[in-house]
């Protein structure tokens, strides 16, 4: 049996199919993964992401430490509440984890890391923090929810503290606000508008009941994965890990090369790789019938030129899509599914944003 979030019993009461995930028992779906996916694209869905870990960084050198630890640059974050997506790298440029970091003030940043990597991340962070005047505090006592979809904000705001509603309604994308012991960010992992909310565990069930009554559909990990894939967002462990550089994982845009004098872990390795990359990261659209799956091999003529890092069925496009790492010079590629070659076309992610297809279907 895995760990339980404060919403475990709530999920079971909503008839969730519970599955093990990263050491936790989590809802895969509550009946139909496809329905949940469409609810998020068309209306509003609720995800329990309490298995992920919030970590607070406080102290005089909180900023200096994060500028050393992360490939993206937290000094870019202004004003208070602004969030940034970044990779945390090994010295050789391999990705330890991808994460979101929120800037609250110069001596307080909050980071959210993946569930399955939490232990490893904390060990690495503690080790790197030696010599910095920074306090690293995991906030495992917080529940974490994502409410996502075009109607997510309007259905969530009335359930928040009355004196917080107007300022929360005014949050810009990728901006967050702390209110008492709640923390609300206009962020997510679906390609739709919405909030991610951290709150005391004891209040999680009541808040979810309120969302349910407001017509927000509970959604499982299944829909979370198809939504993020359509949004062209990477999944740690599938699309990148310690053995891959962000430069071959479609994450070059998250590396802050400037200012040049900023040293961050992995910088030298990335600088060497840059300009001599043999692989690139692309989106794929299956031309034939079938479903692209993780690890399927890709070919150009008889040469294997890469593999799918995450693939699946896009409920919005009603086609199969994938993210893949391929040789830089490969162009006309095919995928091998059960011994058969099928045609795929290289496309530029995202596949879907804000309910709309972002690629040409043919």
């Amino acid at each position, binding site marked *: 049996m895995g760990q339980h979030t404060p919403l475990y019993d709530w999920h079971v009461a909503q008839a969730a199919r519970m599955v093990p995930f990263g050491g936790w028992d989590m809802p*895969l779906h509550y009946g139909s*993964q*496809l329905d949940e996916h469409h609810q998020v694209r068309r209306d509003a869905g609720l995800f329990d992401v309490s298995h992920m870990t919030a970590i607070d960084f406080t102290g005089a050198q909180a900023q200096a430490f994060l500028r050393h630890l992360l490939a993206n640059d937290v000094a870019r974050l202004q004003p208070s509440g602004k969030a940034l997506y970044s990779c945390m790298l090994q010295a050789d440029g391999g990705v330890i984890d991808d994460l979101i970091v929120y800037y609250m003030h110069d001596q307080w940043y909050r980071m959210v890391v993946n569930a399955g990597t939490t232990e490893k991340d904390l060990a690495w962070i503690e080790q790197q923090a030696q010599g910095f005047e920074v306090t690293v505090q995991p906030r495992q006592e917080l529940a974490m929810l994502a409410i996502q979809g075009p109607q997510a904000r309007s259905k969530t705001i009335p359930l928040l503290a009355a004196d917080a509603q107007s300022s929360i309604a005014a949050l810009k994308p990728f901006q967050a606000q702390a209110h008492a012991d709640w923390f609300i960010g206009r962020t997510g992992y679906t390609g739709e508008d919405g909030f991610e909310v951290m709150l005391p565990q004891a209040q999680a069930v009541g808040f979810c009941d309120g969302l349910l009554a407001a017509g927000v559909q509970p959604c499982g990990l*299944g829909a979370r994965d198809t939504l993020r894939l359509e949004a062209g967002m990477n999944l740690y462990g599938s699309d990148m890990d310690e053995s891959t550089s962000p430069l071959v994982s479609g994450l070059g845009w998250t590396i802050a090369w400037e200012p040049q004098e900023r040293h961050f872990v992995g910088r030298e390795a990335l600088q060497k790789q840059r300009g001599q990359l043999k692989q690139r990261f692309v989106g794929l659209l299956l031309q034939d*019938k079938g*479903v692209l799956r993780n690890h399927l091999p890709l070919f150009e003529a008889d040469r294997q030129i890469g593999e799918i890092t995450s693939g699946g*069925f896009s409920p919005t496009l009603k086609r199969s899509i994938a993210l893949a790492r391929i040789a830089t010079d490969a162009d006309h590629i095919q995928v091998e599914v059960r011994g058969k070659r099928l045609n795929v076309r290289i496309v530029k992610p995202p596949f879907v944003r804000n309910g709309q297809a972002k690629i040409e279907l043919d």
Partner: protein
Amino acid sequence: MSQIPNELKYTESHEWLLLQDDGSVTVGITDTAQQLLGDLVFVELPEVGDVLAAGAECAVVESVKAASDVYCPIAGEISAVNETVADGPEVVNEDPYGEGWLFRLKPADGSDLSKLLDADAYASMAEDSH
């Protein structure tokens, strides 16, 4: 709870079979199987005329989650396939024992059917696999 109709025969790999009046056998996947797979998004069917051995891989059902092989439960020749499920795989989720059937075959030996599981045997097996 999964439905397991009494009048059908079953395999350990979650196919069901129904003997038709003309001696042919209709094959599909069980309610348990479709629940385990989740929403289906793609079905690959055999071709009419394919001659298959018992246990041969003869169809693929793919859900949002995974691809799963469908095995030919008894030896025979494919006599019909259900194009409805190829066009709309969700039919298998909605009606696995009716509109969601996959294919029909002419058994090489009609007595092979008696070697398969009855509803009670399948129910206790499916219970164990949960």
